[in-house]
């Protein structure tokens, strides 16, 4: 996954948590951790690592966010450009790059859904284009948007889309239709409820995945079917959640919340 680049040629740049450090600090020669030298504190060159590895975390989805925040603060105190403002320009560049990596990693792992999406991407999943940009582009060009409607929502979504079109037309002509607006508000309420239902679904899909990780760590070989089942379960929850989020956005836009 990560390609190793080695600017100082004195050892292999590691991309694993600090516990398995094998390389030496470029400044004082001591054995170094991934981010900064445990001995002399100097910032180490950046390496292309995934966000879990950056924090020295296993690839599990249940995560202690309080601990993550503590690590984020602790690493910020060492890596931030402000703290390294008097260092050599090369170190300052490293600190800038490392801190932006840190910020990215923290932001992604902190939020449950982005954490899940990220792990799925690491597992090779290609996401359908669910973004708002795609929605806009599709609407503007008149082509159909590539998006799978969750099957149990088909009828509901069909009705909702009709109402949304009507409401958009009303906006253009300046007409007011309070009962239509109320329908949309009810639909919104309904969808928010469905979104909330998903929180526990997501949690149990995490447990399913984490169990596999634990079994793999203890030496058991994990079959493709088990792995794929866990992944697909998370994927369908995430897709559904994103779909609902986009719908809610469209409703909010029309209702101008």
């Amino acid at each position, binding site marked *: 996954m990560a390609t190793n680049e080695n600017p100082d040629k004195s050892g292999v740049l590691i991309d694993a948590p600090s516990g398995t450090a094998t390389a030496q600090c470029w400044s004082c020669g001591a054995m170094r951790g991934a981010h900064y030298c445990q001995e002399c504190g100097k910032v180490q060159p950046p390496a292309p690592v995934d966000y879990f590895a950056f924090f020295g975390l296993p690839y599990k989805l249940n995560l202690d966010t309080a601990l993550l925040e503590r690590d984020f*603060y602790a690493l*910020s*105190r060492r890596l*931030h*450009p*402000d*703290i390294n*403002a*008097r260092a050599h320009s090369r170190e300052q560049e490293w600190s*800038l*790059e490392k*801190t*932006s990596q840190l*910020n*990215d990693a*923290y*932001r992604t792992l902190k939020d449950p859904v982005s954490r899940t999406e990220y792990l799925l991407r690491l597992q090779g999943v290609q996401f359908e284009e669910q973004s708002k*940009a795609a929605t*806009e*582009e599709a609407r*503007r*060009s008149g082509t159909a948007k590539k998006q799978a409607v969750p099957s149990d929502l088909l009828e509901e979504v069909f009705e909702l889309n009709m109402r949304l079109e009507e409401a958009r037309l009303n906006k253009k002509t300046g007409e007011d239709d309070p009962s239509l607006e109320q329908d949309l508000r009810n639909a919104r309420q309904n969808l928010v409820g469905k979104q909330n239902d998903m929180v526990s679904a997501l949690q149990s899909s995490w447990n399913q995945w984490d169990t596999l990780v634990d079994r793999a760590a203890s030496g058991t070989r994990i079959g493709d079917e088990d792995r794929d089942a866990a992944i697909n379960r998370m994927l369908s929850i995430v897709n559904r959640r994103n779909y609902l989020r986009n719908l809610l956005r469209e409703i909010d836009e029309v209702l101008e919340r």
Partner: protein
Amino acid sequence: MNRAGGKTAAREGTRSLVLGGPGRNRGNAALSAPHRQMTTERIIGIDLGTTNSLVAYMENDRPVVIPGEDGLNLVPSVVALDEHDQIIVGNRARKYLIETPERAIYSVKRLMGRGVEDIQDELKLFPFRLADDLAPGEVLRIKLGNKTYTPPEISAFILRQLKRNAERYFGAPVSRAVITVPAYFNDAQRQATKDAGRIAGLEVLRLVNEPTAASLAYGLDKRETATVAVYDLGGGTFDISILKLHEGIFEVIATNGDTHLGGDDIDNLLIAVALDDIQGDLGMDVRRSAETVQTIRKAVIEAKVALSSQDETVLDIDLPDGKGYRRRITRQQYEQLISPVIDRTVGPVRQAMKDAGLIPAQIDEAVLVGGSTRIPLVHKLVENQFERTPHAELNPDEVVALGAAVQANILGGGSEATKEMLLLDVTPLSLGIESLGGGVVKIIHRNSTIPESATEHFTTGVEGQTSVAIHVVQGERELAQDCRSLARFDLKGIPPMPAGLPRIEVKFLLDANGILHVTAREARSGKEAEIEVQPSYGLTDEQVESMILESFDYAEEDFQKRQVIEARNEADAILAALQKGRKDPAWQQLTVRERDDVDKLENALKAVVPHDDYRAIRSAIDALNQATMHLAELMMDSAVGTVLKGKTLETADVGRGPASPHPIAKAEIQN
């Protein structure tokens, strides 16, 4: 020896022979305070405000504002060209606003990082005069007299004044600074501020967001965890920032604002009312008379300030042709008039809270920053929005500069007071790339902690295409044309290949200042692509370099030479004052011994002035000052006695130092 002004109150009982003002600030700090002779150069913190600017530094464990030569902490952000085409900055420039308004400018911060099309509304409300020969797409230039300057150059004059004030105070050169900017400033506005610093001869180590800086000043002593909302309403800009404080870490969660909303807008409302009144009541249309409008502005500001503590006031303006305009304004009328302006802050506050995912009950403390937060209506609004009484213990005019000084200290390696402190700020606006069809693809979202980077991949659309154009914008809208154009990048040097084959990796990095840097490489060949940047509103590096050269007046910039010139000026002043003093009856009241001492030291000073020995001149001035203290006191007492006849010192406002509550009023006293 009296070193008055700033945080130290004017000491009673000592008088300087050089009368007038609360006592000039001395560079002789070098003599009387040897610890200030620093071998390591200090980093200063600067608040470059719309209405007033300040410079501060960390003295041991407390940030301290550095006063100007006139002993005042606030330097009005006013720049004028005097009769000899010399640049005047600050309090001394304010009279030119009224006397020769076409040779003076205020609130230049409103023009930083903006283009001609952006400022059309501004031009209706402010007396900015654009250069006649401005070409479309060129950086703004403003007329001062018969010269023209870009906004960064004008801001540089202010920064240079602050730099000098600091150098005089330290008795040592200063070349590095932290400068604050509104949190909601976009890339162009930030870059313009950095350019201004460079032109002024300062290496800008960091741009810090104003609300974040204010929170640093407030949080200096605090080590607990708290969620804080900072409401910063200044002369021209409004920011709202929500922060989480945790054991010395100041983490911004969300920020929002309006870079064209502030006290100026309130002033303009009042001016419009006065102009309409004058036209209606007196049949005079004075809009075309720049001097009259400025006179009205000055009166309107005084009234605004008065209404913060009084329930009513009178606008009293002298018009041309001996006419006069008087109007009583009650606080109620005033509040009714200005509430639409104040209410414009509600939207950004709500959005910031929404982005932070918080409700008012979850905010532990609200903090008021900026001169305009003295207005009782603003106080009420903040109290309503956050459901608690906001903090205003620190001077809202000074708190940002104090915070900048704290950050300067952190960057300089920190000290006992700041060793646990770290700022984690965010970018206020989303960064996006214009896509085919005119939409925006957001690559960095607003309120992302900075530094922050995003990598995007591009390819060519045509066979053999060797360059790719990218348009980067900032903002939240869906269409690129509704966002702020940041820059257009041309990635050049792509090896010719079939269309769609090249894989160009572009990295967008927002640094800790919130300014964008772009690097690119063609992934297959690994070759670094050449990037040509066209900033949409800004100076190129070459332009800044030539401005630095143009503004460099060797005799003046050379710190040592300048010290000698300033010391000589002071020597002249004290010798002239002594001339007068000898003619005063008080001279006869001195003992023979005292008069002998004065004569001797006067001669000693005269002997040393023609030479270039700054130290010698300095100590001769101090010695003479010391020797003439008694004379000065005697003269002062008799002058006071003659003028006051029955009033006490308090009611006569004698010896009132720079502790008055309003910045504008304070400046007026010193004219």
